[in-house]
């Protein structure tokens, strides 16, 4: 059972690492919008953006 004296502190280190990683993810804004990114992949269009500047340059 002595291995536990090594494994548990190791677990604590992992715990600290995961908390740090989560904090980093929150800070970099990855949890700010949980709705859009999921649908973004469905909507993204592979077609190259068409050249339509003539049509929109006169919009009011």
């Amino acid at each position, binding site marked *: 059972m002595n291995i536990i004296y090594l494994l548990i502190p190791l677990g604590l280190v992992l*715990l600290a690492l995961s908390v740090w990683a989560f904090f980093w993810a929150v800070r970099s804004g990855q949890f700010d919008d949980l709705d859009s990114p999921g649908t973004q992949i469905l909507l993204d269009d592979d077609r190259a*953006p068409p050249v339509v500047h003539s049509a929109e340059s006169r919009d009011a």
Partner: protein
Amino acid sequence: MECATAETLCFHCGSPLPHEAALAVQVGGRLHAVCCGGCAAATNLIVAQHLERFYDFRSAPTRPADAAARNWCIFDRETALRRYTHQRPDGERELSLQIEGLSCSACAWLIENSLGQEPGVTHVLVNASAARAELRFDPQRVALSRVLGKIQALGYVPLPLAFSAGASAGATERRAALKRLAVAGFGMMQVMTFSVSLYAGVMQGMAPELKQFLRFVSLIVATPVVLYAAQPFFVSAWHSLRARSPGMDVPVALSIGAAYVWSVTSTLRGHGAVYYDSVVMFTFFLLLGRFVEMSLRHRQGMQHDAIARLLPESALRLEGARAERVTPDELHSGDRVRVLPGERVPADGRIETGSSELDESLLTGESAPRLRNRGDALIAGSLNLSGVVEMSVTRIGQDSTLAEVSRLLERAHASRPEVADLADRVAAWFVGGVLFLAAGVAVYWWQVDPARAFPTVLAVLVVTCPCALSLATPAALAAATTALARAGLLVTRGRALERLAGADRILFDKTGTLTRGEPRLAETRVLSTRLSANRCLEVAAALESCSGHPLARAFTSFVPASGVSDVRTAPGRGVEGMVDGVRYRIGRAEYVLEGCAAGSPLAPAATEQGHTSIVLGDRIGILAAFRVTDLLRSDARETLKQIQSLGITPQIVSGDHRGAVAAAARQLGDIFADAGMTASAKLSLVQSLQSQGQRVVMVGDGVNDAPVLAAADVSVAIASGTDLAKVNADVILLGQRLSGLVYGVESSRRMLRIIRQNLAWAVLYNVTAVPLAASGWIEPWMAALGMSASSLLVVLNAARLLKVCPRSAAPEHQPVERAIHA
């Protein structure tokens, strides 16, 4: 152009179509009908950019596009750029926008892709849940006004936010809560593992040094949970104690703190019980409940930057004879500014010339317009209703009353239903009772069995936590508000919902409410030889352009006469003003006749079915009568029928002529109607109904409704109405659909039912759990689990309100042709 399909709803925004659908757009090779020029333009723009897949993917109603072009050029000025944008080292500028009308991720996609096609826009990121956009652009290649104009052309309203380095308050709160939740969650998982080992060790035998090791490890993990994750409970408990009204966080903080301290002491002394598991579990589940509640609250979609919303986009600064549009923050103390009717006052100041009625309800809560004359003070953010005034600026920026105003607004948005206040008051008493009970239990067990005293007291404190009681209402309220916002109803005051549930009578204004509010001139009859028909129309157009009354829009297609001065509106009656030196009045016949010399010939303004007459006159007599038609909204009849089936009496109160109102009432299914009501008559009707104990809802639109809207128990405004009605209303109906009102009543009733269920559950739970805990049957960890489960149950019950699909609102997210029944 004839429309190819038998559509009844606008393809773009889902509003009911006008009876004669004149506008059609081509999407994917098919013709679709749209309701207005704004929606047609938005759809065409979307199609021109090959973004029509937006219509397949959207999952929430789009709001009708605003046809009126707004002047965004003000944002190209250097000062505006400095205020709203931030220059990056590479010369590009970045800014944040709040986007009104952003309802789902398809909208976000649309804006991102549409702006992405704009040369010079280098980065667009739209956050759908916060309705915010982050934008980076090259000012050398594209003007900011063009970008903003494009967002508006797509049917949204961009609201540039003053640049600040940090995220919004809501995002900051959410991030902090997520971090705390993560610490508590990770901590709970670890501590639970150790606890299970310790419990197993008790049964199977465990080496004492291993036991002590596990306790120390638990201590290490539980410490950040208590000191960091549970911090909000300690802070809030401290505040509530200092305010001498102990809130629900007092027993929470007490039990977490006491259990932690007890456990630490036991650990250090090497014997005695530890409660790390209870502590971390309790903290985690409480934070989880709060987090769900906070998410519901944040989704209310009402977090506009209060100051940005109150200040006008621009102000008209006078320099000598020259008038120049500037942003409000360019103003300095001492500047002269002209404020036109319908505009907001850009800064605190004093009137130099002119007089006008101003709506200062944002500051005073008094909705009746105040007459302000020369020398009177003007307050930034108040709305100029009638006359043109010139003012000198006295206070700007931080000194102005605006900071106060934004606090007021925040408070209005934070206002909670009376049920919630009651629950909080009960909770305060309850907390006192719990602390007293805990003390009693401690004394009792100390004498009977000192070893059992602490765990029992702890169990009592934990199990009785009135969290469920205090979460019951706000969670339900937030969920209902969110669901309503999705269906196109914005609730601006919390109290409105529960009052809507108990409504006895709904009063409808006719013009712009039951009708579409897009009046058209049907006939012009010239009644004197002094003015030609064309001149009459010019004068009428000039005067009515200064009026906010819905009927005034009948004249917008005519070229107004120039040289208009000294314009004053009599709300609900008419407009008076000088045109080329002659004083004219336009409006209701009585009002115009009052302005005539005595004995002038009365021209009976014949009113026929569904038509309203507007009369133009000068000092001598009546000049012309205009017959104006306004069509009923296509869902008006159905809505009134459903309202009756909900047990609420609908009633029409209109300032219009008897004939026109009676015709409308007949068409709507013989609704009780009062015609010829002035604003004060409507007000006294509302008050007399209220004195009979009825709860009155007023649905209105227009300047003459403001005092009535404020007097009613709940005020509802249609979003296309004037700014004023919006400001004063408790509930705003978007999307031009009256039927949203039925859904509003239904959901508010459902909300009250769920609140009652929640409260009943909370009470039942406490009544059962407290005796069990006090008699020592419940271990602290069981108490933590039970209490947390109870809180979560309440929050999840409230979340049910989110799921209900509006029965009466149209399923706009489907392509329109699928929504049509044969």
